[in-house]
């Protein structure tokens, strides 16, 4: 249940570390709260420092590994873990220890290339199979 002002950990390698939710997209039935698989608009609160590219190293460091997001940027994100329990179709209940999300762009493609950490299996059910397949562990 991510709502306005909720803090989420960003678990991909886009460079952001912490993001604050600013708006929950669509889903009138969610009543303003995002669950796993929902898209939110968020502001990056903390990001990993982007290295300053000096002359000779130029083309190599501007690679996939370099963080792409700065602090204060407004981006979209998909929620992948919530502290609030999720009810699965078989009746089981799953709860994570923190709220986490993965940054995406307007088209729905991930900004980062890798995911570090556990991800909820509900992502697949809600149409984010690509993110679920990148994750090291899906529960």
């Amino acid at each position, binding site marked *: 249940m991510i709502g306005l002002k909720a803090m989420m950990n960003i678990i991909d390698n886009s460079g952001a570390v912490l993001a604050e939710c600013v708006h929950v997209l669509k889903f009138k039935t969610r009543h303003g709260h995002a669950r796993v698989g929902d898209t939110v608009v968020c502001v990056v609160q903390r990001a990993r420092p982007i290295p300053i590219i000096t002359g000779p190293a130029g083309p190599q460091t501007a690679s996939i590994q370099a963080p792409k997001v700065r602090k204060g940027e407004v981006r979209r994100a998909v929620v992948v873990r919530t502290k609030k329990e999720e009810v699965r179709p078989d009746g*089981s209940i799953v709860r994570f220890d923190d709220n986490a999300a993965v940054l995406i762009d307007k088209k729905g493609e991930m900004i980062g290339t890798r995911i570090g950490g556990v991800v909820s299996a509900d992502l697949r059910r809600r149409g984010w199979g690509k993110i679920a397949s990148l994750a090291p562990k899906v529960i």
Partner: protein
Amino acid sequence: MKVEIDSFSGFKIYPSKGKLFVRGDSKVFRFATSKNASLFLQRKNPRKISWTQLYRRMHKKGTTEEVAKRRARKTVKHQRGVVGVDLATLMARRTEGKDVREKARSEAIAKAKEEKKAKEAKKNKPARPAGTHTTGPRVSKQQMKGKGGR
């Protein structure tokens, strides 16, 4: 259908019952009831809570039946024949006894020696008329072949 076990008390969790908790370090904990879940989150040690399986195992409560069951099982070895040696010959060979075996061995050795002697005799006969060393063996071989050696 997989019946899980509770991470705290060791109870069975049937599908659609209980809760699953994933901790920050990605470790999974399953709870059958809110009682278990609550105690776990209060960081209670299940080894000290007397109704949990961990406690019961530690204090060896109600385990006498289990131990008895384990003793009953003992694997029985069956003798099987090998390819080339069926069971009967295997058992016969086992019960042969040392003398019989030694006799057989010495007989075999004597037989081999005899055969070797015969071979050498055959070899030597044709070699003499040939005369020279180098052609000797060649001739004898041919002759052996002609005689239809062995």
